[in-house]
């Protein structure tokens, strides 16, 4: 991927070692998909930790999940879905050579991406205020008070929040990388570099963006919706 995006500024550029443009594009696409495969395993390690501790410490996970702001979580999911739409439309615009539209859509994507990060930041800040950040005078006392019906071990509560921060943190890191990537793509689209003959970078960036969206699609129910039903 790094190679195809770094080709000289004008038009469809065929790197020396490929024999056809098709070959070059297929290579980029396979490379990107393989990379996304590795990403699945990267997040997979955390999913395993999540699965084990959720089975062991369900109460604490439920309480932790309740303490998250479901409104912000849902809104953020929607924001990401919208950004995925603009990305998909952006790839389409590039395919069809609508350069202006492409620029607008990329811009929108960036705005959605930044909005997501902003909302995430707000949520994290709330957690900071509530002393729910592990390692920073963590305190689950409020949860123990708020949910007297379920018994909460503060140590196990901390494990929930550790995983919450590890998972959303690494997801946010991916978002930040995505924003960087899309800024680059935006810059080159404004220079009119992408069109029907050459849009591989847009397409590859799009795949990455959608993937990060898919990860969030799972993180949302796993972290926010563990146990929201009314307490008996």
């Amino acid at each position, binding site marked *: *991927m*790094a*190679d195809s995006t*770094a080709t000289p500024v004008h038009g469809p550029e065929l*790197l*020396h*070692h*490929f*024999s056809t443009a098709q*070959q070059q594009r*297929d*290579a980029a696409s*396979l*490379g990107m998909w*393989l*990379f996304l*495969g*590795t*990403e*699945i*395993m*990267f*997040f*997979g*390690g*955390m999913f*395993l*930790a999540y699965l*084990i*501790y959720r089975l*062991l*410490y369900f109460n604490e996970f439920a309480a932790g999940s309740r303490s998250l702001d479901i409104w912000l979580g849902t809104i953020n999911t929607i924001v990401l879905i919208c950004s995925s739409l603009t990305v998909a439309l952006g790839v389409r615009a590039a395919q069809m050579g609508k350069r202006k539209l492409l620029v607008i859509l990329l811009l929108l994507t960036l705005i959605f991406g930044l909005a997501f990060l902003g909302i995430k930041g707000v949520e994290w800040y709330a957690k900071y205020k509530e002393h729910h950040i*592990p*390692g*920073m005078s963590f305190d689950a006392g409020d949860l123990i008070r708020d949910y007297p019906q379920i018994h909460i*071990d503060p*140590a*196990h509560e*901390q*494990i929930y929040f*550790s*995983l919450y921060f*590890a998972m959303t943190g*690494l997801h946010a890191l991916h978002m930040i990388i995505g924003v960087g990537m899309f800024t680059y793509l935006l810059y080159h689209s404004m220079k009119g570099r992408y069109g029907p003959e050459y849009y591989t970078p847009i397409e590859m960036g799009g795949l990455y963006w959608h993937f990060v969206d898919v990860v969030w699609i799972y993180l949302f129910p796993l972290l926010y919706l563990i146990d929201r039903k009314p307490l008996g």
Partner: protein
Amino acid sequence: MATAVITPERENYLNQEYGIKSWLLTVDHKRIALLYLVSITFFFFIGGFFALLIRLELLTPAGDLVQADTYNKLFTMHGQVMIFFFLIPSIPAVLGNFLVPLMIGAKDLAFPRLNLLSWYLYIIAGALMLHCICTGGVDTGWTFYTPFSTAFSNTKVVEAGVAIFIAGFSSILTGLNFVVTIHRMRAPGMTWDRLPLFIWAHYATSVIQLLGTPVLAITLLLVVFERVFHLGIFDPTRGGDPLLFQHLFWFYSHPAVYIMILPAMAVESEVIACFTRKRIFGYKFVAMSSIAIAVFGFLVWAHHMFVAGISLYSALIFSALSYLVAVPSAIKVFNWTATMYKGSITFTTPMLYAFGFIGLFTMGGLTGLFLAALGIDVHVTDTYFVIAHFHYIMVGGAVMGYLGGLHFWWPKISGRMYPEWLGKFAALIVFLGFNLTFFPQFILGYMGMPRRYWQYPPEFQVLNVLSTAGSTILAVGYVLPMVYFLWSMRYGKPATENPWNAAGLEWKTSSPPPTFNFDQPPVVDFEAYDYEHIPEVEEVPVG
């Protein structure tokens, strides 16, 4: 290396450009292979140096040469350097990098810049590791077991963890590049059933790198987080499970042993075919066994945890699965042996290494079967039996494969022949020194000597002395090739295009190859190992 370039008439990848910059900014897979060659050799000697210190300390039962803490750092860094900075990149990043495009008739890997990036990642990781070594080191064992690594060790765990994390990405990128290259860049006519077995095995290796290494990355990251922020994920006092770390670690690190051995098997298939002048017996089965190893290799990781406190049932499952992965290895050994039947065998240096490989790998593999047997593993786990097992495979197998391959393709890489008699002599020394070093360790292990012991009960001394003696011989055996390879770059006999009279596309271009590998884009209309169509020459022209 840049200065020692030879000057044949033809233009080739070595003499096309000169100067440090032309090397550090190269995107030519062959030059990157040489960059890797130099850097992993460096780390091999660092790791070897630690090994010698370990062996010297163990000469006497008392801990007298170094402090206990120093000893702990020595074996930790020996393991980490040897595994992550030498063996995992060794064959793939040097020989694989050099040969994968040549063997399939491509001009380069699919992503040349990514290839260079992966070398830079390796160098960054290596520099960090070196910094860590020089400023105090780590003492967790190469396995980073929690909660020792997260809460008790006072050494530079974070730095080592980050270094290995980065090295992991280097490894992932190499694997990614290979898979894409093998899928997309084959020359016309190079169908899957014409691929050299070298390519098949590298393909399988890459798959493991892609699917396993990310798990190591996240695991190390979690260890770092745990150490810095005290998350509690691996901390038993907070309800964390230290065994979760072991599951995650071995999910990568067992398959990683196949990242180390598959490429060596790749080399042996080429070498044995060439020096028996035969197609490898059961080509399809050997090819498929590589894939099978890559897949089954992921199903057995908890055999490193039989006494760690996992449940009885899962121990049974993982023990049974461990035997499954041994079958494809057996297939390979039997097929190589069968290939020699009715061959026309020459005893060149690479072939001697191949003999050594088969013998020592078989012994290492068979002792793996001991370890996979639950009842026996309980007794010998964490003893020198395990140490002997994996050095037999990794040093006896993988390093021999690497050295054999380096000799085999040296004429292609450097354009010069190495001195054959010295090569054979060194191979012999390596073989003898190796066995003297590691065979006594099997006995030590069954006697009950635990590993990672700085001092030990006196009755173990004699065997330890033998082992230490062997390691000094081994050191000579390793220094020799380095010396004569360097020598040959200037004084060696110039190599012809195909000095071994071997099959394969890499031998159909000049030695050393031109920058884009082939003057004419090759078209493949022959099977792999078509030795029946290659006339025998009178004398194998060795230098």
